[in-house]
């Protein structure tokens, strides 16, 4: 770890995790997370207002915890990064407001960054600098996309995405049909280990020869699984929960890995990165490993804790922005719930209103 690598604090509040991470270059120093997931569980999904309220309560304590964990002083930071989108508007706004206030108070450059690009960049903390280009499969409760990233700070190209439900959403919905609670991912993963993935042939969406090669669809699968379960129940038979979980999960990860490997081959990319909450799924990791090895592709998947939403991923992308001299955001930075994936960060609108100018009055360091 070189002392001249950028020291960056990252803030993530796009959904139900209040995350604050601190990195130096590609080295993780702290990853503090406060989650409101338990509060949402009885509603069967994330309730935006509950998430926003929890972010407000957790924001400053989580920043302070991360600084303590990293053993660094806020005045030594080289920048503050924050998820400015996409995500829940009210939730994003808490993090963006905190980041702006923190950057302003400490006289540090501010970087509003893209949540999806952060999910890719976090792998630098695990496996070192990203190859260029990187192929990335992002799968979570909010997104399922295939992205080609020649430069994670400035050039991210969407190849395909889900046309209906996100992969994680399908896990949540099937868990609900099976009365397994929320969130559905971890419990289905666990039960599937004891089931037979070949016992029920559930459909693989959008895999026909004329279908969009890199797009996903999980809505038909979800309906098909629900009907299968309902038919069993209507016949008075016991539902083989473990086999259903295993067969459903297999259908999802089969399509995800098949399309991701195909995209790598088509684009001549020899690295595949998988990120997002569903990347914590053990079967997805195993099948991706198997298929990548067969195709001569190197697979990069961060440890499960870095796949789910966290502040470290935002800090990782922020550090890359600093290292590559990208233009900081300005104090007008807004939360953008539908920030396109093609915008890895949100540079200040007017170069003449750059950070230094806005802070003209306080140019001499506040702590000098």
């Amino acid at each position: 770890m070189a002392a001249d690598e950028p020291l960056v604090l990252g803030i993530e509040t796009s959904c139900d995790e209040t995350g604050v991470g601190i990195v130096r270059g590609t080295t993780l120093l702290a990853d503090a997370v406060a989650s409101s997931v338990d509060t949402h569980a009885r509603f069967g999904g994330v309730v935006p207002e509950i998430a926003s309220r929890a972010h407000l309560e957790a924001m400053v304590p989580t920043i302070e915890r991360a600084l303590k964990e990293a053993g660094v002083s806020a005045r030594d930071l080289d920048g503050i990064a924050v998820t400015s989108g996409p995500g829940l508007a009210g939730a994003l706004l808490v993090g963006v407001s905190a980041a702006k206030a923190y950057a302003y108070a400490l006289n540090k450059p501010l970087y509003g960054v893209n949540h999806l690009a952060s999910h890719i960049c976090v792998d630098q903390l695990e496996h070192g600098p990203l190859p260029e280009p990187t192929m990335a499969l992002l799968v979570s409760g909010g997104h399922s996309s295939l992205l080609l990233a020649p430069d994670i700070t400035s050039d991210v190209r969407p190849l395909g995405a889900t046309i209906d439900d996100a992969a994680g959403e399908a896990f949540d919905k099937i868990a609900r049909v099976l009365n397994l609670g929320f969130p559905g991912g971890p419990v289905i993963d666990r039960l599937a280990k004891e089931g037979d993935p070949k016992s029920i042939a559930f459909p693989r969406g959008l895999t026909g020869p004329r279908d969009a090669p890199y797009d996903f669809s999980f809505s038909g699968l979800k309906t098909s699984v629900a009907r299968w379960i309902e038919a069993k129940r209507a016949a008075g038979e016991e539902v083989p929960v473990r086999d259903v979980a295993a067969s459903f999960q297999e259908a999802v990860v089969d399509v995800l890995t098949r399309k991701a490997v195909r995209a790598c081959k088509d684009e001549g990319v020899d690295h595949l990165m998988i990120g997002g909450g569903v990347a914590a799924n053990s079967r997805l990791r195993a099948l991706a490993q198997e298929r990548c090895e067969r195709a001569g592709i190197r697979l990069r998947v961060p440890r499960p804790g870095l796949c789910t939403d966290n502040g470290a991923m935002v800090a990782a992308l922020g550090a890359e922005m600093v290292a590559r001299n990208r233009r900081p955001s300005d104090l007008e930075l807004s939360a953008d719930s539908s920030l396109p994936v093609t915008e890895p960060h949100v540079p200040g609108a007017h170069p003449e209103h750059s950070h230094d100018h806005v802070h003209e009055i306080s140019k001499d360091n506040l702590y000098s």
Partner: protein
Amino acid sequence: MDTATPAVTVALHDGASVIASSGQVDARRHGELLLPAVDRVLAEARVKLDAVTGVVVGVGPGPYTGLRVGLVTAATFGSALSVPVHGLCTLDGLAYAAGQGGLEGPFAVATDARRKEVYWARYEDARTRTGDPAVDRPADIAAELAGLPVVGAGAVLYPEAFPDARGPEHVAAGALAALAAERLAAGQELLEPQPLYLRRPDAQVPKNYKVVTPK
């Protein structure tokens, strides 16, 4: 600073008077407007943020999204600068401003709570609230407040319920800061900087999942 109502307002107060202030009314852009307003106010006063010895923030009641912008900004300043952060009821700031404008008590203050409701409270005089703030439909409190002047945009919005509506319509951070300075000088405790939502989040426990098999 206060972002609990459509007004985004910031002021710098030196314990004796307001040195600089800013007020913008835009219910949808609290997040974009607040920090630039802080920067402008400090620049106008030729003061750096690290010279500030305390932060006062309006805790509402207010519609949630905007309200949180001021609260999280204040809390973050407090943490970054190691200075105390105090809360004040936004309605108290409006009452104080009405008093500065010459209104004597008793009166009431009402702000727009959206959904055809107002946040409101009664005041003995500009410094003395009687009772906790509440959220209600104007028609349901019209009789209770009959004959009283009612200050604020929530009153102006519903003239049939509040015939004696008065200004100022929006809270000004200068009044909030002046009230806080007065209370702190008198050794009084201010509020914790925690939001006054007055409503539960809209969230419903889902019914059983919808069966997808056609009948």
